[in-house]
């Protein structure tokens, strides 16, 4: 659905040329929810804007839904953009138009007749759950409702791809979740391909199938969300993964426990997919003569399955503890002892 080859973007500024993104090679499948994560300035905004031609790559090519977005211009580009919906961090609604007027705007651009516009607007209002708010102005809506209008507007012309530019970054956690659920629902119901950029790992975990981690204009890590969660390779990816798996206080807690219990071992268990549902700890206690103290743990759901970490403190006879660790290694849980013993 989307193919980016050798894309590079250089901005000319007063202080000389600045490379925003480079060496980008990426393909996104039809029906996929693809996430790009990075801190501000990593180049993700530039990259997502290349997908609908708001930015043109200095080198390389961008193809979306069979059209070479990076090459076409004028009327052809405008036509292509009607097949690519976009939603924004600050919603970017027209305050001078009602909810209905805002949703009808892209239909007016596409030259849809008044009658059909009204019909389509009604469908969309229902789809995004804004029944009864059609005649309100954006200033009368909450942030979450504004983003729903943004989504309805982006879907008006039945696009093949939906681009989300930090779509939940201005929303509170609860509203973020409801918007994310709406996106997943749309993805499943309409088979729509979604590309989103964010700096919140929570968003990636919750809805993305695959993720690309960006740093200094390059993609430094790319893969299925669960794999990236399990084995983050780059330091930046590890930091992002920690956002959702390890609360800040866990390190302190472990430090404290290590001081309180100098004997034994502290083991970090990582559960991925199926193994997250197995009674590993029960087996451990039954088979070995060790005391297991659960220090901290968390299980998160991702689009491809569950993912979790558990910190346990094992005490007992040294040889028994070693056997217990060997057992854990043999299970489908990855255990890591090194850092904490």
């Amino acid at each position: 659905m989307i193919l980016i080859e050798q894309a590079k973007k250089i901005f000319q500024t007063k202080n000389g040329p600045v490379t925003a993104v480079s060496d980008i090679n990426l393909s996104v499948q039809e029906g996929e929810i693809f996430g790009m994560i990075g801190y501000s300035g990593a180049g993700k905004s530039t990259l997502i804007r290349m997908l609908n031609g708001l930015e043109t790559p200095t080198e390389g090519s961008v193809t979306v839904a069979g059209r070479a977005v990076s090459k076409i211009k004028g009327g052809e580009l405008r036509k292509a953009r009607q097949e690519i919906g976009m939603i924004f961090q600050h919603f970017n609604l027209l305050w001078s138009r009602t909810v209905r007027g805002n949703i009808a705007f892209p239909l007016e651009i596409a030259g849809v007749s008044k009658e059909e516009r009204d019909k389509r607007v009604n469908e969309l209002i229902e789809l995004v759950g804004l029944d009864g708010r059609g005649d309100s102005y954006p200033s009368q809506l909450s942030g979450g409702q504004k983003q729903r209008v943004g989504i309805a507007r982006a879907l008006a012309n039945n696009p093949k791809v939906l681009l989300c530019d930090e779509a939940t970054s201005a929303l509170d956690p609860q509203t973020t979740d409801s918007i994310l659920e709406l996106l997943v629902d749309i993805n499943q119901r309409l088979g729509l391909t979604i590309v989103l950029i964010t700096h919140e790992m929570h968003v990636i975990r919750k809805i993305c199938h695959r993720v690309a981690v960006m740093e200094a204009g390059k993609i430094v890590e790319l893969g299925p969300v669960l794999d990236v969660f399990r084995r983050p390779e780059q330091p930046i990816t590890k930091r992002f993964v920690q956002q959702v798996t390890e609360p800040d206080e866990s390190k302190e807690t472990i430090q404290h426990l290590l001081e309180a219990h100098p004997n034994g071992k502290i083991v970090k268990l990582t559960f991925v997919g199926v193994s997250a549902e197995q009674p590993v700890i029960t087996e451990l206690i039954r088979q070995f003569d060790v005391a297991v103290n659960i220090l901290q743990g968390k299980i998160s759901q991702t689009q491809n399955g569950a993912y979790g970490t558990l910190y346990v403190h094992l005490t007992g006879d040294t040889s028994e503890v070693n056997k217990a660790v060997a057992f854990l290694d043999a299970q489908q849980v990855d255990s890591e002892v090194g850092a904490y013993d």
Partner: protein
Amino acid sequence: MTEQWFPNVDWEKMWEATVQTLYMTSISVIITFILGILLGLLLFLTSKGQLWENKAVYGVTAIIVNVFRSIPFIILIVLLIPFTKAVVGTIIGENAALPALIIGAAPFYARMVEIALREIDKGVIEAARAMGASTGTIIRKVLLPESMPALVSGITVTAIALVGYTAMAGVIGAGGLGNLAYLDGFQRSRNDVTMMATIIILIIVFIIQFIGDTATRKLDKR
């Protein structure tokens, strides 16, 4: 009571002058509104980072606007006499005042239009582009509606300034309340005529302000 306070006022002449002032003001406001928006759009669209970014066009337009905005109105009328004669055919009467009124006010209003357009959230323009809108559509359906309250409050200020300009134009033969106040009031030392002309001008200004404020409030849904 009017006999006692305004013994020298010829009401028929006063009414005629009021109509002339209203005529000059309304025609010049309408044309200034259109011309100012066109010039303001040109200034905005050719400025840095906008859709038609063009240093040369922006520079030339900005200079023309600044020059005409800076010439004192009374001097502008005199400078424009040959132009007025060529366009209108005469330099006396209400129509003769129009070229100077418009050329004096349109650049002033164009700057206000440019400022109003700059106030529009850049993200909204980007959203319209992302939807595949052409520049024409963006102008008609985004730029103008989104800046309308500021455009209306700007034309209100300009219209009030234009009422003042018509009075000045009146002194050198354009008719209207300024003309009456000067010839009938000042030159014949009839202060009551000057006073009455002033009162009527004030009423016109208040009405313009009221209409402008009401319209701005109605239009602004933010």
